[in-house]
């Protein structure tokens, strides 16, 4: 079974600065997907970014980018130019490649605080 670990329960950053959230995972599969979801105080789960394991290029979405290290099974999220609206719980998630209806396996989450 796959596991996802986020070792930073809490992180803080100053507005306009950059912060990196860590995620490691364990799997025996060679193909899979990785995601970062954001959960603001409203508790809605919002997709931030995704990465296909077969792609060597790191995914980017505006101010959000990932550092995907497949051999190390590491998938960190970098938030540049942090904004107050980025304050939220961030979850790393894993999904197998196999079928379209596969479950997401989540990490424990990292609570990000953005200080003005």
């Amino acid at each position: 079974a796959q596991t996802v670990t986020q070792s930073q329960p809490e992180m803080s950053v100053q507005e306009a600065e950059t912060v990196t959230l860590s995620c490691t995972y364990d799997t025996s599969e060679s193909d899979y997907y990785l995601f970062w979801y954001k959960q603001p105080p409203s508790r809605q789960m919002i997709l931030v970014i995704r990465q296909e394991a077969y792609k060597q290029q790191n995914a980017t979405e505006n101010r959000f980018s990932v550092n995907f290290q497949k051999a190390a099974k590491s998938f960190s999220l970098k938030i540049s130019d942090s904004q107050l609206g980025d304050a939220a719980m961030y979850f790393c998630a894993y999904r197998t490649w196999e079928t379209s209806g596969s479950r997401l396996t989540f990490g424990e989450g990292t609570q990000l605080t953005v200080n003005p």
Partner: protein
Amino acid sequence: EPEVTQTPSHQVTQMGQEVILRCVPISNHLYFYWYRQILGQKVEFLVSFYNNEISEKSEIFDDQFSVERPDGSNFTLKIRSTKLEDSAMYFCASNAGTGVIQYFGAGTRLSVL
């Protein structure tokens, strides 16, 4: 933009009562899911549903849980006899047939007293 809709946003029930949580997935999606998040803990998979049957379920999804797609739009989670430990946020999600991304609803907060 299409979205997954969940009702109610907050449900309060007495221990031992039955509850039904409702979800309207995105209209052209084919795969549906329920997840649970106990306060302060990680999001946990409960069940996935495709072609009118359960495709996968977790060890949490025991006999007191059931899912149903009663018509072409709704997807429900029933808890037959609620326990205190069922208090949690329940999220519905869906994805398209060839899609990878699961889109989540805003959740239903279930409080069992």
